[in-house]
């Protein structure tokens, strides 16, 4: 079985692609008690329009991928959580824009837990009754997020930035869209997106790589899969400009919350180019807005922002955007200051010393991540889905240049691609 050593990280990664197309990765962590496995499919809330090899086109209701994630946990012989619990393992799952991830952590019975994970995710069991029952639970999840101002102000920004790209849609959908989901549609999406060739399995922890790989091989050899459905994702025709300059909403909050963000034009980079762009963006945003930046400190000293203030950069197929903000007493002033700082730096360029300091900080933070099997597993599949390699991140950070970082910022800061989202307290 092929293994790649990464001496700098003191890690060795084992990889094999099975005959059915499933990519399996094992990262042994000698001395660790816990094993963490993630089984991920490239199917998220933004994969809502697609065409199959047989020519059929689909536009699925909002929240379908997330609904499917919930429903996978039900099996004819009972709840999957109970089977993990009997092996002392805890299981969970999450759905993002571009992926759905199933995971467990266990300190023993790892082989059995791997079988349970592979079996429940590859064995859909939907009935009209169990699909109906799930709607009540998911509608309560949606209502919970409706009351969450951080979530709402973040999606407000996405709704303002994007005209049509499905990244603007809430991952869980709406009570109405969820109500229209049927078991037939769930089966169809499962067949298309949960094909082994569209999935990754990553196992990290106190495991023997050969034995783990053999467990997975044996499990997959017992199953038959149809050929891949010839999936083609249909991309939304997204204009370069922001949809609208500003979104506002009200909720019971103590102080306004505000994000300002820019969307990237021609944001369809992939593979290493996309990863480099993301790293350049993260260094620049950190240099400009982290707690060691003069801009943050000034705004903080004036009580314009608090330690909830932050800057992030998010990207995926067909979308990439920055989001900068947090709690603020004066959203208009915060937006003005953030934009001004970005425009000024785009014009003058980052100070080379600052660039080096932040690069060093990012490398240190990335190395710390390797302490946490959970974090490594989550980040690994996220990078893999983008066509990137988490294990090469330090190298990529080291090869980034100041010119790349400055070039990114100049292209990013564009007035017509800016939007603002504000959440204010209930005036009544």
């Amino acid at each position, binding site marked *: 079985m092929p293994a790649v050593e990464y001496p700098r990280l003191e890690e060795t990664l084992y990889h094999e692609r099975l005959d059915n197309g499933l990519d399996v990765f094992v990262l042994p962590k000698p001395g660790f008690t816990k094993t963490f496995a993630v089984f991920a499919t490239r199917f998220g809330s933004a994969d809502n329009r697609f065409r199959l090899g047989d020519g059929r086109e689909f536009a699925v209701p909002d929240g379908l991928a997330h609904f499917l994630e919930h429903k996978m946990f039900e099996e004819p012989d009972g709840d999957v959580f109970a089977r993990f619990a009997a092996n002392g393992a805890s299981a969970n799952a999450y759905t993002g824009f571009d992926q759905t991830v199933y995971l467990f952590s*266990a300190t023993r019975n790892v082989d059995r837990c791997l079988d349970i994970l592979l079996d429940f995710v590859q064995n859909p069991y939907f009935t009209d009754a169990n699909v109906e029952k*799930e709607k009540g639970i998911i509608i309560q999840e949606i209502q919970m997020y409706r009351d969450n101002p951080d979530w709402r102000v973040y999606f407000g920004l996405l709704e303002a930035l994007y005209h049509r790209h499905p990244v603007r849609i809430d991952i869980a959908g709406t009570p109405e869209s969820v109500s229209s989901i049927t078991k037939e549609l769930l089966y169809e999406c499962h067949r298309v997106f949960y094909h082994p060739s569209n999935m990754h399995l990553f196992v990290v922890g106190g495991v023997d790589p050969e034995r783990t790989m053999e467990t997975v091989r044996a499990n997959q050899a017992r199953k038959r899969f149809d050929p891949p459905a010839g999936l083609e994702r249909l991309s939304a025709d997204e204009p370069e400009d922001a949809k609208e300059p500003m979104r506002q909403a009200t909720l019971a909050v*103590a102080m306004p919350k505000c994000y300002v963000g820019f969307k990237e034009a021609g944001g369809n980079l992939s593979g290493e180019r996309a990863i480099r762009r993301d790293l350049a963006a993260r260094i620049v945003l950190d240099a400009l807005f982290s707690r*060691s930046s003069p801009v943050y400190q000034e705004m903080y000293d004036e009580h314009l922002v*608090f*330690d909830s203030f932050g800057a992030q950069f998010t990207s995926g197929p067909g979308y990439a955007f920055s989001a900068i903000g947090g*709690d603020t007493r004066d959203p208009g002033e915060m937006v003005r200051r953030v934009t001004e700082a970005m425009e000024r730096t785009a014009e003058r360029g980052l100070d080379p010393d600052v660039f080096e300091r932040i690069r060093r900080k990012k490398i240190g933070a990335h190395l710390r991540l390797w302490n946490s099997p959970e974090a490594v597993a989550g980040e690994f599949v996220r990078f893999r889905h983008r066509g990137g390699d988490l294990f090469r991140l330090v190298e990529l950070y080291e090869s980034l240049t100041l010119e790349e970082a400055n070039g990114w910022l100049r292209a990013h800061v564009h007035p017509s691609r800016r939007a603002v989202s504000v959440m204010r307290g209930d005036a009544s």
Partner: protein
Amino acid sequence: MSLNAEPFVRGRSGRIRLHVLPTKKFKTYAVVLYAGVPLSEAEITRVALLPFVLGRGTASYPETLALREKLDAMYGAHFGYDVGKRGDHQVVQFRLDIIGDRFVSSDTPLLREALNLLGEVLTAPALEDGRLVARYVESEKKTVAQKLDAIINDKIRYAEKRCLEEMFRSEPYRLPALGRKEDLEGIDAASLHETYRRWLRIAAFDLYVVGDTSLEEVKSLVEGAFRLPDGPPGIYAPSLPRQAPPEPRTVEERLDVTQGKLNMGLRTPVTYAGPDYPALLVYNGLLGGFPHAKLFVNVREKASLAYYASSRLDGHKGVIMIQTGIEIANYGKTLGIIREQLEAMRRGDFSGDDLAKTKEMLANQLTALRDNPFDRIWFDFNASVAGVEHTAEELLAKIRAVTPDDVVRVAQTVGLDTVYFLRDRKEETVHARG
């Protein structure tokens, strides 16, 4: 595998208890300093403010930006602080997460740099006219005020906080660890400095280091970096739990929300230090600690009433908090189902299979602690606050020995104290219009 294969090595440096776990397993040094004082109505807000002000600048790095740049240059050392409650104590926590020297090329060993910095933050802060810097004090008062105000933004946290306030309305424990907004106004650099001096004299200090080091090394680094008044280490007095009243109190509150939040506060005289604590862990696990537990199965899976329904145990205080988010109209129905689960636990109405699963899940949690340096510190500190000397492995052995009768005995001590329901304003508006 033995859980205490790498036990903490203990020592002392003046008033600071040292707990060092020498290991090469991790790529980092994890450093945590706990400073605990008894909860005091008079002092709670000033003590809460201290870490915020101390984190602004030190004698060597009096300007905040210089201090933060220093942390960046230490390969992005993560420095954080927090204030929490452990039983009837207010505990300030400083935390450093630093990359191990073998992964980077640093001029000075990073652990030395980290402990020097922490020692300065705690014992040699930036001063002006011999006391804490007034502009930092004023600035951080605003930050703490904002944090206190912001609790209402997260309705799950808000509902829990309100339920605890109602449960403990006549005890200092009702106070949030961050203090009270109304106290902030009266604080200035002089009064805060006085609190700081006293806090250094009376707080119980515990310093934990996990990483590629030794007690001797940590001790010598601490002796060079921390300048605390002399004296014996402080202690944590156990908290005295109370029984729930015969009938629970119900509190309803209205806010602009879509989803109702139902919190139920329960009390038990069984606490962390008591012989029945392992059975209490099992009780809480069966009731609402896991996805196979009664609350998740009956409120969510069977009745589709909620997305989350769980219970959380505070073993220091003998409190179990049940929480769920529901359709407002389903309040009565949900309350009924939850009370039925509490009754079922009292009757011993749970299967041997569920008991076994719960023990396996608790075993998984306790065993997994080993792989996270901060979790190991957290576990050891909790035990030491409670005055218990057990390792995770010893606790686990006791959990495995818990019988159904033990769980029923504990269940019968658990009483419902407070029902708190956060709901919308709609009906109120209708009445006003009608």
